[in-house]
């Protein structure tokens, strides 16, 4: 082999420096359901099948496109009485999708939000309760703008923005398709 080519490979050991070990999945769906609705007695799958027309409506109202045709939704009850809705969603992260769950009550207020999977290098602060609590009480009519009503986290701006837009989109979905079903 060309001695110069061998010389040129001196930097290759750098490629083994990085540690690949990262926790990515924090909660299962069942664990997130218990965290967001600790008193619930029943979670009934009520997935939404969205047409192109539905997706177009969601985009025009939420300002963000609805990528999925099937939206995983659970109707949450306590002793036969409706408590709210539990929705699982994915948004685009810097490299991979971020999976999160949102609890929305009958009136369309966010009860809570949990991050199930976060696979990015940094910006794990989105999992902190103090950041997630900013969404509690939000409705579809709120601003949902970074550094206005939702604080940004430097280094995870794209994740913050897409999670913020994602929760707003779920509130629009609730308003359009779940509230009438109540």
């Amino acid at each position, binding site marked *: 082999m060309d*001695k*110069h080519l061998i*010389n*040129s490979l*001196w*930097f290759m050991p*750098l*490629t083994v*420096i*990085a*540690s*690949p070990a*990262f926790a990515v999945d924090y909660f299962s769906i069942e664990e997130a359901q218990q965290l967001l609705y600790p008193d619930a007695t029943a979670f009934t799958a009520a997935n939404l099948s969205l047409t192109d027309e539905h997706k177009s409506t969601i985009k025009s109202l939420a300002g*963000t*496109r609805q990528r999925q045709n099937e939206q995983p939704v659970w109707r949450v009850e306590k002793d036969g009485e409706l408590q709210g809705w539990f929705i699982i969603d994915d*948004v*685009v*992260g*810097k*490299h*991979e*999708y971020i999976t999160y769950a949102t609890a929305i009550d009958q009136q369309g207020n966010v009860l809570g939000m949990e991050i199930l999977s976060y*696979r*990015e*290098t*940094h*910006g794990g*602060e989105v999992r*902190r309760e*103090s*950041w997630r*609590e*900013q969404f*509690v*009480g939000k409705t579809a009519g709120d601003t949902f703008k*970074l*550094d206005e*009503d*939702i*604080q*940004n*986290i*430097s*280094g*995870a*701006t*794209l994740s*913050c*923005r*897409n999670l913020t*837009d994602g929760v707003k989109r779920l509130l629009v979905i609730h308003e359009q398709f779940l509230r009438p079903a109540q």
Partner: protein
Amino acid sequence: MFVLCRRAAFFTAAFVASLPATGIAAENMFGVVKGAETLPQDAMEIYQKVNRRSDKGQGDYTAYDFVTEVEYGVSNRFSAAAGLKMMRLDTQGLIIDGYLPKANDIGLKLSGIEFSGKYMFLSPAKDDIGLSMYMSANYDWIDPHSGQDKDTLSFETELLTQKYFLEGELIWATNLGLEATYADRAAIDDLPEGFEWPTDPEMELELKFGTAMTYRVAPKWFVGVEAFYETEFETEVGQERWSVFAGPSIHYGSATWWGTLAFLTQLEGGGEQYANQSDTSLHLIEKTKQELRLAVGFNF
């Protein structure tokens, strides 16, 4: 009470956000074109970049440029970097008056240092479009074209824009830059008779414009395309050269490291040409027909 809780949550989150946070914001998505994002405060990345330049249309010419660089997030808007440059060159069968005096086969050699800084005015993920200013200072002691001794001091300023589409699955970036260079060649003893090798210091100005777009085809994987135009003006000859390069790039980004491979080919070029240059639609004195660029970065 509810409003108070929300306000408390907002301020707590503001405090969290003000803590040193790290990120992967500065990873190179393209071979040449830069993104507008900076590293967050206290974040650090180490890069290894390699550029293989080959084919001047005659003889054999292959050069490798290596840059090992460390970048640090001084604040959430300003990051600074320092890099060590090395090169190797193998050229034979081509003599270019004033530029390539003789065959040369040099192994890996330390060739220069660079310092750079990037200040982000607007964040691409938060504002409508990202806007940054990039500045760099380079000192090189080997001529990257011939491998001969040459002291070069250059200062570069670039405006970088970056726009996210489709929630970040599609990224568009543009760069507009100006580089001023002072160069002073060392004399060469055994030049061919009549060969011109000016040793008086010279000044050069280079204008650069690049644009690039990349799309996330699968989690962690981006496939893109980029194009850039460069033109250089020199004291005596006016516009010395111009060239347009374009080509595809592929980028992989994970939680701990990222890598980008770009293949660029010279589509068109002009300005000075060497004697008997067969392909007259390209600039092949300071540029080559192809560039293959690899960059690998590690997050800390």
